[in-house]
């Protein structure tokens, strides 16, 4: 029955889609570390996702999906490096290999850290929260954050840095407290 054949294909493709959803954070982290631009990394992640869904036949169920998807990501980053007008030093293939090696060690699901950061974020207010909102919800650059809060770029950067540090410390304390 034709519908069953279609369903079998759909199941495999769906498995790839579900794995992309599951591994979104580590893939995005790899791309952010590689291209050092969150917005470009998000764009690349979409390209990687589409490439993965399109080439679902090449993925063998039961094997390491994240490694497979990261290889697609690595190739996209190299294409990006060719097209990018940015200084390409950090887009060197050897740097990507170093990141890949580090990523293999860090393949644990980020669930606990996500929970810890979420709780820490909920307890954060004032300027720190405002700059985080501007940075991550509004997607503003540090220059534009400075403009929005009426501070110099240096002050805005310092605020953002302190806010991130506070979140990291808070998350570390929570993770230590709940092993």
């Amino acid at each position, binding site marked *: 029955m034709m519908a069953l054949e*279609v369903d079998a294909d759909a199941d495999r493709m769906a498995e790839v889609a*579900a794995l992309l*959803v599951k591994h*979104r954070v580590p893939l995005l982290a790899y791309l952010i*570390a590689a291209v050092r631009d969150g917005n470009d990394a998000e764009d690349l992640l979409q390209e990687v996702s589409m490439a993965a*869904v399109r080439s679902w036949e090449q993925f063998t169920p039961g094997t390491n999906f994240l490694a497979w998807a990261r290889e697609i990501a690595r190739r996209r980053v190299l294409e990006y490096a060719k097209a990018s007008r940015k200084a390409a030093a950090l887009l060197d293939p050897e740097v990507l290999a170093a990141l890949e*090696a580090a990523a293999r060690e860090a393949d644990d699901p980020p669930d606990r850290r996500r929970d810890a950061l979420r709780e820490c*974020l*909920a307890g954060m207010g004032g300027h720190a929260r405002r700059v985080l909102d501007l940075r991550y919800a509004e997607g503003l650059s540090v220059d534009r954050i400075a403009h929005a809060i009426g501070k110099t770029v240096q002050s805005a950067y310092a605020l953002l840095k302190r806010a991130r540090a506070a979140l990291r410390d808070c998350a570390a304390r929570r993770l230590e407290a709940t092993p």
Partner: protein
Amino acid sequence: MNDRLERALDGTLEEGEDARLAQELKGDPALARELLDRARDEALLRELVPAARVAAPAPKSEPSPRWRILSMTAAALAFGLIFYGILVAPRATPAAPQDEFARQIEKLGSADPAEREAALETLKKTPIAKLPALERHLDSPDAEVRSRVHEAVAAALRSALARPVVKVELRALAPGTLSKGWKKGQKAPDGYEAVPMGEDEILVATPAVIAREQVKADSVKLAEAAVSSGAATQVQFAATGEGDTALEKMLGGSGQNGIVRMGVGAVLADGRVIARCRVLKGREGGWGLMPATKEEAGRVESALKGTLKTVAFAVTAERADAAKADDVRAALSGMLDRAAIDAGMRVSLPLDAKAPDFVAAWRALRRLGWRPEAVR
């Protein structure tokens, strides 16, 4: 070193620093790991910060606007949601030339109060399709201009709110373990809310809309794959009266206050099928979906064509534990929003009914890739 990694991720390394960092990364696995850890936090914050904003709890005594759709009170919807799309946005009116915009913007900073007010009133009437011309002035260095442009953008968006509302909503169904022991009429467990589903009620996680993110390119296919993966296993439609009747006749479902809540044969975006499915009655937590035949989906598609008013996508946690469901919701939310935008469908974002932040909503829509210039 930490500062340098942070600046690397912010793209603010000084000239030469990136080359030195690259050399160090090649020979120092611990440094590469630290960079990746920072990047992981960046990835998580890009997900969590917007989600925390959307999920900011509404006062207990005031039901959140997004929930008001369930009771389908038009007035609440009008003030609770911002919406856009080919049928919602104003039809194109003769465009003000770009230099006219520039003149009006300049007048916003005029020393003459009458001239400032006149310019503001003119700009408040900007059609939605032309608002991008004002966009960059939202961050004008001139505080006077900035505040008046905010006011103009808000007024232009507010003017659209008297029109019909369309909503795309993501919800997480309660896992089977929770819904099994719960009965209609009982108090919902913490973190969940009971919503009507035909004759029954189902438990869905709060908040309804979890997170939005940038999604580009071919999202309809991604949404289709995501829906068929079983991650999104429930679709609710609210059609116009005509659509309601057609659906009830076809599927034997029940309408309530003009809204039909049921699983149907296709996920539509104004007539375009982005996923085909058929209804599975009696599934834990409501109606489930599975791939349908083309004919089945086609029947529903033709019945609903042109009548679709509201679509809500529900994401079930049945296939993953509750913790993982957050990932699914966050990713699907962006995919489905973007799919709806790609399909020219009308989408809504929640706004605080009492103090709506139109500019934030505008920016959220733009981040999703919405192009108001394409509005007819």
